[in-house]
């Protein structure tokens, strides 16, 4: 595991600890956010690093994680508009957006050509027939 992933996992454990009830799903999301392209699964983590597993509070931490993710995306977009640094901010923000794909459910089938920005909401999903 790379150093960044290690740092991210340690950070994830620490962040979750105060919350009495974080589920594995949320922790996976956290690793996804802070390590992005790291592929290490929870099963591969040393036991002492494994985040606590509980059965309450999932919506709350999910909301917090989602908020953090949006902050990173919004920051990347705004920075880009102002033309300053962050040389691969597009690639980074795209990786965040990928996380959103997993969070959405398919909707009614629509041809891609029919996609119209004016009628589309954030994260709305469609299926090409």
């Amino acid at each position, binding site marked *: 595991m790379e150093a960044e992933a290690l740092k991210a996992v340690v950070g994830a454990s620490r962040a979750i600890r105060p919350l009495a009830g974080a589920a594995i799903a949320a922790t996976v999301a956290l690793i996804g956010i802070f390590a992005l392209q790291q592929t290490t699964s929870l099963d591969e983590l040393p036991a002492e690093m494994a985040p606590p597993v509980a059965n309450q509070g999932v919506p709350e931490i999910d909301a917090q994680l989602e908020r953090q993710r949006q*902050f990173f995306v919004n920051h990347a977009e705004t920075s880009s508009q102002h033309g300053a640094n962050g040389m691969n901010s597009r690639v980074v923000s*795209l990786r965040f957006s990928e996380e959103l794909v997993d969070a959405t459910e398919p909707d009614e089938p629509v041809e891609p050509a029919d996609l119209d920005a004016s009628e589309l909401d954030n994260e709305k999903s469609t299926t*090409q027939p």
Partner: protein
Amino acid sequence: MRATRQHAASGLLAVLSTLAGIAPVLAEVQPDDWLNRMAAAVQSTSYEGTVIRIRGGTAEALKVVHTVKDGVILERVVAQEGDGLEIIRNGNEVHCILPDRKSVLVEEWNDQSTLYSTLPSSDIRFGNEYDVAIVGKERVAGREAIALAIRPHDAYRYGHRIWLDTETSFPLQTQLIHNGTPIEQVKFAEITLNQQIHASALEPSYSTEHFTWHRQLSGHVGTKVKTSWTSDELPAGFRAVSTHEETMSGSDEVVTHILYSDGLANVSVFIAAKSGELISGPAQVGGSNSFSVERGDHEITAIGEVPAMTVEQIATTMQPL
């Protein structure tokens, strides 16, 4: 035979004259002129090659094809490992194909290049928080490159190194530097510049029939506002360049977003009403850091491509007037 020797000698003389002419020209170009040339090159150069992107000790190879036709950006970026991400861009419309998830994410981008969405420019206030210098010549991706260094004057910001193709000023390699060490890097392993790009090179390699299509709005909705929130302990050179109220995706929650900049590094501060248990403290994504803290009934999060100490100082010193 004599004629041949004379011809060779005159040819050699011509080459030497050309080289002698080029050298002073390169030497006379000032560092910030190189930055201006780079900005123009990123917008106008067609290129095709393999990029290695390194961050936090992890490397990712991307095949990149980019051209501009009739003012429209056409681009294809394909991850060579991992999830096989493929980005197809036609103008501002971008299709991000995720083959392993059988999904296509549709986005709208306004910047000039996926690879170099933002780059340092000569607008930076050099001499205050940073200085810029030409630090050498090297070969990158088989081409001669001139190396620029943008060096910060304190520990609150990162430095940059940029290798520009001497012929076209196109950036062949970029590094984000912290304490003398590269923490993020984009480097072409091989590249062809300004060659004709065939249409087939820009087509997706997957049939997206039966894929699930997701669409995101081009950006978060924001309204310019004035805010009473500020910090009187901002690191030197940082000043507010925009303040917006933004509605968070998927909810009615409105947050205040202040963007601070020192001319090169940007830090966003998000101020939200307190809602539940905050994941406080630091977080990191490559060279980007964030720090969250509670302040009364509000949650403050600072995020930026700056060292951890910078976002912590900004987040912990924000307060309403």
